[in-house]
């Protein structure tokens, strides 16, 4: 029988550009339950930030500086960023 691990994890969320302006800060720490995914984190943030509630879907996300899909499992200590549409060059 699989052992249920009740310990949670902490991830650092980074905000840039339009998202930072909307949220009003550059970074925050979120505590999540074991097995939480990137999409779970986004759903949490949507409840906290009215600006995010207007989004029809989760924006592009990066975990530890790599683009990931929403079903990616998070781990304790991960650096997570949801990214506004990029406009370099």
């Amino acid at each position, binding site marked *: 029988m699989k052992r249920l691990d009740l310990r949670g994890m902490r991830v650092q969320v980074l905000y*840039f550009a*339009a998202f930072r302006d909307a949220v009003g800060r550059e970074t925050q720490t979120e505590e999540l339950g074991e097995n939480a995914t990137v999409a779970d984190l986004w759903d949490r943030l949507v409840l906290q930030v009215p600006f995010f509630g207007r989004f029809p879907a989760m924006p592009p996300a990066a975990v530890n500086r*790599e683009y990931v899909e929403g079903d990616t499992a998070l781990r304790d200590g991960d650096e997570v*960023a949801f990214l506004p549409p*990029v406009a*370099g*060059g």
Partner: protein
Amino acid sequence: MFMTDAPLDLAALLEEARPSDGALCLFVGVVRNQNDGRPTTAIVYEAYGSMAEEQIERILGGLAREFPSARLVVRHRLGRLSVGDASVAIVATSPHRAEAFAACRAAIDRIKTTVPIWKKEFHPDGSSDWVDPTKMS
């Protein structure tokens, strides 16, 4: 380091890139005095720095496989730029001009779509806004 706060020195970049390689293609992005019909006075470039460096490295790795004879040099400027300033410069050299053009073009296309860099435009009336390419008219 591909990102820099200092003005891009194109002459130095050409010297760095130019070997006896036959063909050289340089692309430079220059801050325009308008975007989508609205006058622009300045642009602030911001990046998710560590991720941007890794993503450019990854793009260059992919291009090295696709264009094995080409060599690429990339610089992207961050911070506040004025109209006419160079925001990005890419030099591709190759023994063959078709490859130099193709590698240079692919590099700027991928940088623009996948590297976490954003720009805030400032207008003559003092207002500003973040550029959203997905909402371009």
